[in-house]
């Protein structure tokens, strides 16, 4: 018997409500005080195909899913057939009683067959086949013994908009289904879920957390063009447009999105744009414009697998190097690579400060796995009060009053940072800026000495920004036989892999980089040069961070665990690769 330690996978076709069912059930679990990690696997289509939503519950805090599941809720036959092999012995599978399945075989594998009158209950009790999902969730709840009250609450909330009748219908269906599950199968099933009494907590994913961070730090403008898996950032901000005074502009294309954000930021508003690879590609030219004009701007790239359209709804970390070198010529940029929901919030809260302090584009490089996977966090995890709005060297009207000469936008300084006046904020606040090389006053200037100095000035900001680095985290024992190196969303699966290894008597730790540019050379060199064995873990083909590390430190990571099939890492995948020594392009 195990309590609050299991993974549930809800699987079916797009349009069958996999996502809403998963989201609803996890919300109920979250409200029930459980620790969760949810992840989604879905195809690029609106209906049909095979998708799943997986909820992992654990007594301790968790940062990842794992490959094995304990309970499968199969909404159709394909889901049943495809995923039953992922179920651990002793696990179970819920399916409609009318589905033709070989329950004999299940038994042989030690898997419990929880055939259930899902549709029947929906139709008979609710009078509506659309209530199937309600029935399915409630049965799952009953089988695991989870609180009916919480399920009921979520049902009430989610159907509230549709009117009392629908709410009541669903509740009736839920009740009957719940009872069926509990009465019929609860005793046979060893994985139980039990409410834990604690103050309400937040269930939140990477895109949401980033958006909160952005709101907290004063983002007031987002111009974007929809692109999976980044769209929800714009959508979240849009839903708060009025309340927080955030202007959300869906544009005609990504070029406009980037340029509008630059225009808004130039006028003094904290501005951002969010997209995925293809959209980022279209922003590349204007990225350089921001670099050259020293306009602060935040660009989020929620990665998905390329090249080109690739696997539009899946995950990968294939864009690291692209972020570092996108756009012609050389200019400073900062690249944040948050690995957890907490770091996603922090990235949102940091990015706008960094952009304004260094007057440069800041790229937040996330990915689908981080963007859509939820965790449950204490309410005070995100320190809203601790957010510090630092606009950098921004001239106030009093400062401008004191100016004796014309204001010079790009005056040379020690740090490379030139105090910024917002156009129109004062009668002295006018000046030209240009994408051409320019003199300190912003006017076009081709002089070669000025060019050297301006290049040095701009690039100097990168050095200045190095004092402000978001330093890598060393997770696990200080000293270990294996040091894994990772960035971005690999954090979760790798962290747990490290735990597993240490629990198993090996010794391992993880060096994780939440910021890759400017490169935290000192810290990385220090750790790696002292490490016994170093293994990179990246969700791409070329081991891009490993390459960057070699370029920046000389340290050569010869063994990399790579994944580039569009699916996120799991601790299982990592430990298996390690065991079987499948390094570099030798994938599983």
């Amino acid at each position, binding site marked *: 018997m195990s309590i609050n330690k299991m993974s549930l996978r809800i699987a079916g076709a797009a349009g069958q409500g996999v996502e809403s069912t998963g989201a609803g059930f996890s919300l109920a679990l979250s409200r029930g005080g459980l620790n969760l990690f949810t992840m989604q696997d879905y195809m690029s289509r609106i209906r049909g195909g095979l998708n799943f939503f997986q909820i992992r519950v654990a007594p301790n805090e968790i940062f990842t899913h794992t490959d094995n599941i304990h309970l499968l809720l199969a909404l159709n036959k394909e889901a049943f057939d495809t995923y039953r092999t992922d179920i651990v012995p002793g696990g179970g599978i819920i399916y409609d009683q009318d589905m033709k399945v070989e329950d004999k075989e299940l038994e042989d594998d030690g898997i419990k067959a929880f055939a259930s009158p899902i549709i029947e209950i929906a139709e008979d009790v609710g009078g509506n086949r659309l209530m199937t999902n309600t029935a399915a969730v409630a049965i799952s709840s009953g089988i695991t013994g989870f609180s009916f009250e919480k399920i009921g609450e979520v049902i009430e909330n989610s159907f509230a908009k549709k009117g009392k009748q629908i709410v009541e219908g669903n509740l009736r269906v839920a009740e009957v289904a719940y009872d069926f599950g509990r009465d019929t199968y609860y005793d046979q099933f060893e994985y139980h879920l039990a409410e834990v009494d604690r103050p309400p907590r937040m269930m939140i994913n990477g895109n949401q957390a980033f958006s909160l961070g952005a709101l*907290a730090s004063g983002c007031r403008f987002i111009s974007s063009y929809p692109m999976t898996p980044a769209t929800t950032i714009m959508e979240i901000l849009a839903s708060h447009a009025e309340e927080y005074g955030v202007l959300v502009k869906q544009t005609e294309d990504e070029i406009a999105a980037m340029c509008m954000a*630059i225009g*808004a930021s130039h006028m003094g508003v904290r501005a951002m744009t969010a997209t995925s690879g293809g959209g980022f590609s279209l922003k590349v030219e204007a990225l350089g414009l921001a670099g050259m004009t020293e306009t602060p701007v935040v660009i989020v790239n929620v990665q998905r697998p390329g090249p080109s359209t690739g696997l539009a709804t899946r995950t990968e970390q294939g864009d690291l190097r692209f972020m570092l070198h996108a756009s012609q010529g050389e200019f400073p940029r900062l690249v944040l690579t948050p690995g957890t929901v907490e770091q996603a919030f922090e990235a949102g809260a940091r990015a706008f400060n960094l952009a304004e302090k260094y007057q440069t584009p800041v790229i937040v490089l996330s990915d689908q796995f981080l963007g859509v996977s939820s965790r449950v966090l204490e309410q005070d995890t995100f320190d809203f009060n601790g957010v510090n709005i630092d606009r950098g060297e921004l001239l106030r009207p009093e400062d401008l009053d004191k100016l004796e000469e014309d204001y010079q936008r790009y005056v040379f300084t020690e740090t490379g940072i030139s105090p910024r006046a917002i156009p129109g904020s004062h009668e002295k606040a006018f000046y*030209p800026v240009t994408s051409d090389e320019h003199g300190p006053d912003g006017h076009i200037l081709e002089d070669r000495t000025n060019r050297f100095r301006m290049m040095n000035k701009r690039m100097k900001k990168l050095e200045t920004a190095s004092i402000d680095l978001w330093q890598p985290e060393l997770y696990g024992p200080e000293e270990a036989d294996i040091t894994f190196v990772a960035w971005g969303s690999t954090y979760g699966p790798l962290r747990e892999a490290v735990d597993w290894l240490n629990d198993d008597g090996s010794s391992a730790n993880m060096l994780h980089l939440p910021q890759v540019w400017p490169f935290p050379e000192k810290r990385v060199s220090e750790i790696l040069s002292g490490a016994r064995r170093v293994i990179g873990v990246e969700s791409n083909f070329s081991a891009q961070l490993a390459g960057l590390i070699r370029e920046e430190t000389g340290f050569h990571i010869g063994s990399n665990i790579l994944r580039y099939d569009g699916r996120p890492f799991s601790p299982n995948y990592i430990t298996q690769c390690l065991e079987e020594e499948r390094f570099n392009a030798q994938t599983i």
Partner: protein
Amino acid sequence: MLRPSDFIVYQKPTWCPGNPSCGNFHILSTIRTTLAELNLAPHQAIISSGIGCGSKMPDYTKINGFMGIHGRPLAVASGMALANGEQVVIAITGDGDGYAIGGNHFIHTMRRNINITHIAQNNQVYGLTKGQYSPTSQKGYKSKTSPYGAIEPPINPMTHALAGEASFVSRTFAGDREHMVRIFKEAIQHRGYALVDVLQPCIIFNRVNTYEWYGARVYDVEEDGHDRRDKSAAWRLAQLWGEKIPIGVLYQEERPTYEDQEVALRNGSLVKQELKLLNPVQVEKLKALFL
């Protein structure tokens, strides 16, 4: 009271001198006059331009300027206007800039009716890159990239502006400063997107569409008693290009701007909103979404 000379800076125009000189000189002095006559101080207006001969305008004008990249002045200007509704936002594009590479922003900015004055310096050629044909070059126009003569009919900014629901559609001629001043002023005073297509002779590369060529053809539509509220009439005029080329305001309508309708602007300009931490109520509300 401001004078045109108040907008002069030390940077000297790099346009082609001559007699007559590049049409951009006239546009520059017209912009200075317009700003002075509208009493707009240098910090009260901003010009968003692209890359091209005429796009260097902000380098020669004492004003806020943003010389961005080729084709994107309208997109940058949109961000500016949405962020700060109190600035006068002027977008300056070339014909290549505005109608070739920037065509997509052109058609979408118009229908939004964001408060931008769009001055398109239409010299029917690519000036800065040395004379290739442009989307407004006439059929048969010979250039190094069309040595056998251009084989595509030119784009017509006027018909596109009408199709694109621009709320102010006009054309003027760099050879007629008085006309330019009048139209620029009207365009800036118009609430919403205003197109001013300026016939601008390029004395170096376009040997077809010269001052004389335009001069002999242009006439103001008002002379013919055109009613600028009449869209059908505007459509007919928009198609004229030949012996007679209509200039003036072809069409104007009053309709709410994008800014008028945007919820985030209900409390005024974004730049006027204080940038401060969320208050506890806001934080609680946000958190509650995830509970």
